[in-house]
C-alpha cells in the first residue's frame, strides 16, 4: 500500500510553473498537433477571473506561444478534424453560452449558434401590447408573474431579467428592449467529439453538445447543421462519446438529476440509465466500462449497459477526472484529481499510483504532448501548470489493494469427474487402511536398514539420532559418534555404547563407553580409537550399539564400513 500511495519514481518532472495564471478545468483542455509538425500542443480555454480575462491559450513545450481573448466563459473545448484538407490540421471548438466558436490555424473561422427555443405565445402578446403602449411596466410585471406561475413554456431571459428589476429601473429597460422580438436561448453545458465514419486516428469528427435544455445534438463537421437530436430527462453536465456516427455510437451523459444516461444511435431517448446514490462529479470511459467519481468520495465502475461492477472509496472529494491511455503500451487507467492535493491513478478499483501535487488540481489531461506520448498535464486551482512525463521503463503492477477475500478464492477450479478406478482405490484404502499402514512402516524400516540413512531410534522414551565419522589413514583410526537426543525437552540418561567387531582385524582401546546425560537438541561427540591389526589390506564392518543400562535390546544400531588401512601396524 505504501508504495502504491507514492508515485514510486514513475514520473519525470518536466515542468512546473506555479504562477502560470492558468485557470481551467479538464473539459477546457485538449492536446493537438495544431501546426502539422508532429509536435503536439496544449490548447486551453482559460476562465480568467470568471468575469474577465477569458482566453484561448496555446502552449508548446514549456512556453505559452499564443493567446487570444474569448468573449465569454468557455464551458468546453475540443480539437477535432473537420475536413479532409491537407495538411490535416485540427480545428478548435470552444463552447461558451449558446455558441460554439470554431478556430482554424488559431484564427476565428465560424460561429455556431444553438437553435432558438419556442417562445411562450402569451408572453409574446404581452410584450406586443407594451410596444403598442397599451400597458405600463407595472401591469407588465403583474402579467408576467402570472405567466411564470402557470405557463408550460418558460419565460425568456428578457422577461426574467425584467422581473428582477427595481420599479425605478423598469421604464428604461422596457423602452430599451420593447422593439426587439423575444427570443429564448439555451446554453451549452458540455461537449464531446464523435468520429464521423471511420475509427481512424485522423478521421473527421462531429461535435456532440449537451444543452441546459436537456438536449443532445450531433453536428455535421463541415456544415455545422444538426445531424441528430436526442433528449434527456435532465440537464447534462458531463459526457463521454465513443464509436462512429455512421456506424454505431454511444453517448454516456451524467445529468444534473444525479443519473447517468446512455444514448445509442437510432434512439432519441436514453437506452440505459444508471441511478447513483450520490451526484456524479467525474465521468471517464475505461475500455468498455464507465468510471464515475461521485460526490460521496467514491469511485464506481459500470458496464456500458449500466450494470454496477465495483466501488472504491477515495480519501478526499474528487476535483476532476481524466482518462489515461497509452495505446503503444496497451495501458488504460483513470486519473482522479483529489481535494487533498493528490492525483490518483486507478485501473478498475485498484490504486496504481498516487502523485502528490503542490496545490489542488483543477484540470488534468493525459496524452501526447510535444513528442512525448505519456505526458500528464495538470492545472492547479491557484493558477499553476505542471507537466510530468511517464518514464519509458515505468510499469504499474496490478495489485488488489482493496480489503476482502483475494480474487483467487472466487475462481472455480476445474475439477474432473471421479473415475471408476478412483472410486475403487478409495474403497480399497478405506477397507485395508491398517494393513496398508503396517506394510508402509515395514518397508520404511527396511529402507532405513538397507540405506545409509542416519540411524534413528524408534523408542518413544529415548528418541535418539546418531551418525558416525571415521578419521585417519590407518592403522589407527579415530571413530567419532555424534549422538543427539531429539526429544523436545526430556533428557536421556544411563546410556552406553558397545561395539561388535572381528577381533582378528581390529583392536579397540575402549569397546564399552558410557554416554553422559543427553540434553535435548545438543550433539554429543563420543570418541574412541580403533587400530587395524591386519596387514593384508582388508577391511570389515564395526557394529555400534546404543543400549540402555540393564537392558539387552539395543535402542540404536549402526554399521560402520571401515576404510582399508593404508599403513602397517608396528608390532
Amino acid at each position, binding site marked *: 500500500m505504501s508504495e502504491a500511495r507514492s508515485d514510486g519514481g514513475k514520473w*519525470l*518532472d*518536466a*515542468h512546473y510553473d506555479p504562477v502560470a495564471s492558468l485557470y481551467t478545468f479538464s473539459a477546457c483542455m485538449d492536446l493537438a498537433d495544431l501546426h502539422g509538425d508532429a509536435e503536439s500542443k496544449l490548447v486551453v480555454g482559460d476562465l480568467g477571473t470568471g468575469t474577465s480575462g477569458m482566453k484561448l491559450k496555446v502552449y508548446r*513545450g*514549456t*512556453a505559452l506561444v499564443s493567446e487570444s481573448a474569448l468573449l465569454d466563459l468557455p464551458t468546453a473545448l475540443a480539437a477535432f478534424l473537420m475536413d479532409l484538407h491537407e495538411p490535416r490540421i485540427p480545428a478548435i471548438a470552444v463552447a461558451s453560452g449558446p455558441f460554439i466558436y470554431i478556430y482554424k490555424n488559431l484564427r476565428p473561422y465560424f460561429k455556431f449558434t444553438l437553435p432558438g427555443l419556442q417562445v411562450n405565445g402569451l408572453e409574446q402578446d404581452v410584450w406586443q401590447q407594451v410596444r403598442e403602449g397599451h400597458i405600463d411596466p407595472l401591469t407588465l410585471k403583474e402579467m408576467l408573474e402570472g405567466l411564470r406561475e402557470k405557463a408550460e413554456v418558460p419565460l425568456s431571459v428578457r422577461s426574467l431579467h425584467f422581473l428582477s428589476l427595481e420599479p425605478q429601473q423598469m421604464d428604461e429597460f422596457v423602452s430599451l428592449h420593447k422593439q426587439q422580438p423575444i427570443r429564448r436561448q439555451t446554453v451549452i453545458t458540455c461537449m464531446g467529439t464523435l468520429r464521423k465514419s471511420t475509427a481512424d486516428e485522423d478521421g473527421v469528427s462531429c461535435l456532440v453538445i449537451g444543452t441546459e435544455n436537456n438536449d443532445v445534438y450531433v453536428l455535421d463537421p463541415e456544415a455545422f447543421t444538426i445531424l441528430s437530436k436526442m433528449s434527456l430527462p435532465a440537464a447534462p453536465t458531463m459526457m463521454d462519446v465513443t464509436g462512429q456516427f455512421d456506424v454505431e455510437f454511444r453517448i454516456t451523459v451524467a445529468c444534473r438529476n444525479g443519473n447517468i444516461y446512455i444514448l445509442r444511435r437510432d434512439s432519441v431517448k436514453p437506452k440505459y440509465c444508471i441511478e447513483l446514490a450520490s451526484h456524479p462529479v467525474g465521468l471517464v470511459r475505461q475500455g468498455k466500462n464507465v468510471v464515475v467519481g461521485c460526490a460521496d468520495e467514491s469511485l464506481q465502475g459500470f458496464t456500458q449497459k449500466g450494470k454496477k461492477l465495483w466501488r472504491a472509496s477515495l480519501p478526499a472529494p474528487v476535483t476532476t477526472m481524466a482518462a489515461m491511455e497509452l495505446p*503503444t503500451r496497451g495501458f488504460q487507467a483513470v486519473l482522479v484529481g483529489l481535494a487533498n492535493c493528490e492525483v490518483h491513478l486507478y485501473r478498475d478499483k485498484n490504486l496504481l499510483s498516487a502523485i502528490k501535487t503542490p496545490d489542488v488540481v483543477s484540470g488534468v489531461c493525459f496524452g501526447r*504532448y*510535444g*513528442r*512525448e*506520448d505519456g505526458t500528464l498535464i495538470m492545472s492547479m486551482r491557484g493558477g499553476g501548470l505542471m*507537466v510530468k*512525463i511517464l*518514464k*519509458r*521503463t515505468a510499469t504499474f503492477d496490478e495489485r488488489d489493494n482493496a480489503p476482502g477475500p483475494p480474487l483467487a478464492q472466487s475462481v472455480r477450479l476445474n475439477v474432473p469427474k471421479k473415475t471408476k478406478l478412483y472410486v475403487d482405490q478409495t474403497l480399497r484404502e478405506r477397507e485395508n487402511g491398517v494393513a496398508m499402514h503396517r506394510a508402509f512402516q515395514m518397508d520404511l524400516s527396511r529402507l532405513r536398514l538397507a540405506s545409509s540413512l542416519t540411524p534413528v531410534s524408534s523408542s518413544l522414551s529415548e528418541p535418539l539420532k546418531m551418525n558416525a565419522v571415521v578419521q585417519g589413514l590407518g592403522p589407527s583410526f579415530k571413530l567419532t559418534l555424534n549422538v543427539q537426543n531429539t526429544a523436545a525437552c526430556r533428557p536421556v540418561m544411563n546410556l552406553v555404547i558397545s561395539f561388535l567387531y572381528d577381533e582378528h582385524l581390529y583392536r579397540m582401546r575402549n569397546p564399552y563407553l558410557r554416554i553422559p546425560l543427553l540434553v535435548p537438541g545438543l550433539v554429543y561427540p563420543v570418541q574412541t580409537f580403533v587400530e587395524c591389526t591386519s596387514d593384508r589390506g582388508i577391511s570389515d564392518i564395526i557394529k555400534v550399539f546404543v543400549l540402555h543400562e540393564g537392558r539387552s535390546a539395543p535402542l540404536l544400531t549402526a554399521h560402520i564400513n571401515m576404510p582399508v588401512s593404508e599403513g602397517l601396524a608396528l608390532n
Partner: protein
Amino acid sequence: MGLLDKLSGWLGLRKKEVNILCLGLDNSGKTTIINQLKPANTQAQEIVPTIGFNIEKFKSSSLSFTVFDMSGQSRYRNLWEHYYKESQAIIFVIDSGDKLRMVVAKEELDTLLSHQDIRSRRMPVLFFANKTDLQDAMSSVKVSQLLCLENIKDKPWHICASNAIKGEGLQEGVDWLQGRLSFIYGGLFAYTYTLI
C-alpha cells in the same frame, strides 16, 4: 584474415576499427549530424526519422570508424543497450530547444551511464547540444547543467554547441573524439611500429 592483412595489422598499417554509438532522443538531430560528417557527394538530401538504426563508416588517418546511428524513438530505445559492449565511444545528441524533454534526455543518459556494460569503462562521451540556431535554444552550459554532466567523473567527456543543418560545431566535437581515440588506440600502434 589473410597473412598480408595480419602482417599489416602487426605493422600498424591497417587502421584500427572503432565503433561509435550515436544516441539521444528522437528528433535531436543524430542522423543530420552524421549526414553532415559524410563526404559532400554522399550526403542524403532528406533526413527521415530513423527506424531501428543505421550504420555509417568513416576513415581518418589512423582510425576507421563505424557509427551506429540509433533511433531515438522511445519504442526503439531498448535497442541501445545491445550495442554498448562492442562500442568504444558514445556521441549523445541533445535538442537544445526541447526544454520539456530535457528530463527525459537526462533519464536516458543516467540509465546509459549506469548500465553494466558502460559503468566501469573509461570510454569517451561526446555531447552535442544541437539546434543552437533555434531562437529559444538553451546554451551548452545550461544543457550540461540540466544533464548534471559535472557528475561524470570516470569518463572523458566534452560538450559542443552545434547546428547540424549548417554543420557548425561538429568539427570541434569530432576532433576532440578523434584525439581521445587515437590516444587510446592509435598510440599503441605507433609504439609497436617503432619497435619494429
